């Protein structure tokens, strides 16, 4: 044992070092305590306080929160208007996730399989830059694009396709007075803003597909299409699932994008924001936030079973 032969160190710093050396757990404990207090007490504590509030209710007449245990607030979630908000948001999250996966795959596949050297670095930066650049700036860019007098309308006119744009906007439900006041607009912005979160894990999973698997598949007579379907895609799937955690979770909780680009029908995030703000109905707002938490808990559990955490 080294400890037995080492000389004692002088001074307080030295004495402390000897203690840490003899008891490594003590050092771990000391290192871990401050950040754990921050996250464990401040953050998790706040989450529990929020959860607790969802079991209170708002007195309809006085507008005061009644601090008694009740499930009435959760019953309110099932009312038609509130249930519609939840359904609408979940449906949007599903569509955004599927579209992101479809657009992300070729980029990830090209970057993982064909890009080398400076091209690889370029691909990486080309995905990282939009991922990290300002969220509001990105949303604002789409406000410019989708505006009635904006570039899409101009482009449609340029190609003599205005009839097509008008036809799309005239569609029930997804249409609207202009793209920036329609579900199509909201959908496009969501896909745009979360796309990099899908590309990176998909690419990470594709990078890990062993070359000899692909060669073996080809040697055994599979054509490229079969190799893709039976070897590459199943191995890339955990990466896609990992990416979908982000696209799904972020869409569920966002309230800025549907507020800036979208029609007046609320999504979960907007409902939470207005309920806690102007309406002062913290219990119902809290109950609303439990929905994405539960959905994400189930989602994370399924993703873990599919091995999605290994590529994060």
């Amino acid at each position, binding site marked *: 044992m080294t400890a037995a032969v080492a000389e004692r160190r002088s001074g307080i710093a*030295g004495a*402390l*070092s000897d203690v*840490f*050396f003899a008891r490594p*757990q003590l050092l*771990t404990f000391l*290192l*871990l305590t401050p*950040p*754990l207090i*921050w996250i464990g007490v*401040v*953050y*998790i*504590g*706040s989450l529990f*306080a929020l959860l607790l509030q969802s079991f209170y209710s708002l007195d309809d007449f006085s507008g005061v929160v009644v601090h008694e245990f009740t499930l009435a607030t959760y019953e309110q979630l099932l009312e038609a208007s509130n249930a519609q908000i939840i359904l609408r948001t979940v449906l949007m999250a599903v569509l955004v996730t599927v579209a992101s996966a479809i*657009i*992300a795959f*070729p*980029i990830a*596949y*090209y970057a993982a*399989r*064909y890009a*080398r050297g400076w091209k690889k670095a370029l*691909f990486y*930066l*080309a995905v*990282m*830059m*939009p991922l*990290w*650049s*300002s969220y*509001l*700036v990105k949303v*604002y*860019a789409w*406000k*410019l*694009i989708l*505006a009635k*007098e*904006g570039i899409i*309308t*101009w482009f449609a006119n340029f190609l003599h396709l205005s009839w097509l744009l008008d036809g799309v906007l005239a569609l029930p439900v997804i249409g609207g007075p202009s793209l920036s006041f329609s579900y199509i607009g909201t959908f496009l912005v969501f896909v*745009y803003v979360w*796309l*990099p979160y899908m590309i*990176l894990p998909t690419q990470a999973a594709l990078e890990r597909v062993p*070359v000899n698997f692909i060669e073996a598949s080809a040697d055994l007579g599979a054509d490229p299409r079969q190799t893709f379907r039976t070897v590459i895609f199943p191995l890339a799937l955990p990466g896609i699932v990992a990416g979908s955690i982000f696209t799904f*979770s972020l869409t569920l*909780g*966002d309230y*800025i994008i549907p507020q800036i680009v979208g029609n007046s029908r609320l999504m979960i995030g907007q409902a*939470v924001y207005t309920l*806690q703000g102007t309406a002062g109905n913290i219990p119902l707002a*809290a109950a609303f936030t439990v929905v994405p938490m539960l959905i994400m808990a189930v989602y994370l559990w399924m993703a873990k079973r599919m091995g999605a955490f290994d590529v994060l």
Partner: protein
Amino acid sequence: MSSNANRSAPLGLRIAAIAGLLFLHLPLALIFLYAFTTEEKSFAFPPPGLTTKWFEVAWTSRPDIWGPLYLSLQVAAIATLLALIFGTLAAAALSRTRFFGRETISLLFILPIALPGIITGIALRSAFDIMSVPFSVWTIILGHATFCIVVVYNNAVARFRRLHGSLVEASMDLGANAFQTFRHIILPQIGTALLAGGMLAFALSFDEVIVTTFTAGQQTTLPIWMLGELIRPRQRPVTNVVAVFVFVVTLLPILAAYYLTRDGEHTGGSSK
């Protein structure tokens, strides 16, 4: 996968990949274009004329920009500093030993970015309400540091894993105490990872809006100012000028972080 390195990609794949990258980048180019338009009441395309006067207007006659800018810089600087301290401590502790509950604790540190921002925001706000904490710069910083810790932690933990334990043991055997070992052996090894993590944390905090709307009260950070301009626009090109500025301020630390971590594993911002 590298067997196809010298074979070129199928045309369809190449087109889809390039189209995808264009989709990611063209919208940002428009932000720059509209900063120069002469039309201030609408987003007319193509811009009727080009001018640089909005940069001057933003600089000289819009005092409402400076307060939010100063607040955002202040918040980002302090939140980054806190995140560096707490994130490094957590990474050091969790990478050096294995103990019961370690996985759960590392999951805890990732939770603030795995849950939608609105949940973090409303949870913190209701906690402030319950404990009667008045809104201040510090309530904003508290929210920001909570998710900035994750970014530093992610960067630091990847570097700690590659740090050889034998170096630390050699230093201790040669008579250095724990603090000297940290100063002369560990810090030089993890320094660039911390710098990269700190820069990403700064960019993230400088730009954050969802959690901030819940923890700011009546205060206005730069993103909250921008959100206000998006909802009730006046002088739209000035908003573009600020957007260009925000874009550059967040982009430079990201490029720097990439440069600092490019030789290692690509952990720079593997998750936001």
